[in-house]
């Protein structure tokens, strides 16, 4: 759509990106800008709130706090973009539910009134990754590459809440966004000159969600360990995710797994925004990669 004006969204940060992996925040803003998507501050946003934790305790609290975040974006008259699958679950699901269900909307609005807010249902919630694929397109992503990634082998981790449950999602391209064998991220990674390597149980969860990381960390890490084993078996050079919580689970999780179970992998973990940043010629320091628990030097040696 060549007539589309410059794209602009509010940028909902969530918690883990700004407060644990700010490299993801900066990489996303800069790379999106290079592709004509302007992400502007969403002042006063908070936690999405975490769907596993809050959805488990009280669905109405989850809906009201998520709707508050959506309202902030409505007040700016902008669609809202997220970089985290968990944030997507909260903001997208609640936004759609309240748009479709007037009774639930009234219930939530009664609570929001206490915060001087009212949910209108006037905007869309998007994940930056699908926005880049659907609105910007693979060709423009490819054209933005100045440092092709030299065929590095990438193990893609889709995570859960962007795509599942598929019946509640409205992606118009079922082949790319299917829940069993999604392709959109594979295409986006390969557009940068990297190679996406298939591995066993590729669409499996990282293990962190649902409050399990907080309640039973050994169960959560055992799942992560299984995914790492499957990726190591096919020799990936790095893991690429689109969710800071999965990102933390794979990055920090590798140190925890080494300590608890004695299994060592040292596989660098990058959010797609950071991989795109490298391909667009940004330095590892600029993308916050040196702050990751798992060092990325082995990967960088293969690119340059």
């Amino acid at each position: 759509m060549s007539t589309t004006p410059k794209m602009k969204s509010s940028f909902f940060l969530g918690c883990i990106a700004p407060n644990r992996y700010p490299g993801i925040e900066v990489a996303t803003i800069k790379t999106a800008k290079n592709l004509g998507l302007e992400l502007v501050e969403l002042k006063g946003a908070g936690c999405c709130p975490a769907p596993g934790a809050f959805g488990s305790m009280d669905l109405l609290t989850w809906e009201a706090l998520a709707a508050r975040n959506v309202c902030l974006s409505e007040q700016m008259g902008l669609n809202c973009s997220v970089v985290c699958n968990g944030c997507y679950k909260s903001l997208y699901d609640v936004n759609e539910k309240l748009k479709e269900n007037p009774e639930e909307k009234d219930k939530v609005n009664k609570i929001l009134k206490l915060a001087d807010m009212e949910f209108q249902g006037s905007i869309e919630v998007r994940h930056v990754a699908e926005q880049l694929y659907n609105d910007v397109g693979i060709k423009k992503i490819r054209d933005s590459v100045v440092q092709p990634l030299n065929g590095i082998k990438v193990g893609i981790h889709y995570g859960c809440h962007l795509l599942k449950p598929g019946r509640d999602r409205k992606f118009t391209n079922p082949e790319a966004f299917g829940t069993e064998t999604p392709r959109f991220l594979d295409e986006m990674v390969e557009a940068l000159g990297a190679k996406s390597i298939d591995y066993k149980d590729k669409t499996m969860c990282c293990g962190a969600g649902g409050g399990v990381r907080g309640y039973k960390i050994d169960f959560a890490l055992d799942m992560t360990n299984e995914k790492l084993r499957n990726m190591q078996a096919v020799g990936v050079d790095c893991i690429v995710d689109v969710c800071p919580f999965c990102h933390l689970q794979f990055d920090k999780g590798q140190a925890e797994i080494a300590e608890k179970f004695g299994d060592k992998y040292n596989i660098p973990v990058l959010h797609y925004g950071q991989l795109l940043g490298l391909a667009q010629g940004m330095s590892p320091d600029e993308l916050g990669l040196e702050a990751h628990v798992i060092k990325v030097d082995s990967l960088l040696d293969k690119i340059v």
Partner: protein
Amino acid sequence: MALESQVLNLNKGLVNFTHEVEKNGGENISVCYQCGTCTGSCPMGRRNALRTRKIMRMVALGLKDDLLKSDEIWYCATCYTCTDRCPRHVKPTDVILALRNMATKQHLAPKNFLANAGYIYQSGHAVPNNDANRALRVKLGLTKDPPTTHMYPEYLPGIQKILDATGLMKIKAEMEAKK
């Protein structure tokens, strides 16, 4: 648990309970034909005692107390694979969330869940900023605090009013008082 260790007394079952779970997001429970796609698809159940099909059956039979007191309902990582694959369009993940909601009202939620509510009440974030991260943010050319409730605390009272109104903070306080 009831299904294995004793003859089921169906009078124990509470039909209202099943309807309540359905009302709270677990719609269509009654059409579950126990095919086991949920348990077979569950990556978490492969490493612990979470058995989604069993939970679905226990809900249909109205075994409220056994379910709300079970530790297993808290093992689900909410990956939604069971919900995505269910041939009967039942939503086992949402059934489990509904059960957790009911357990929370009975003060049976694990502590770490309530702790999240506390962090958000205080800061707006379940994972708040810290000094090491502030330094990293500045190094990356970002503001030391993100433009969220961290930079604009005037938005916090709105969040606190919401949390007070839904009763979640009261549950948290009651649970803490008991300990």
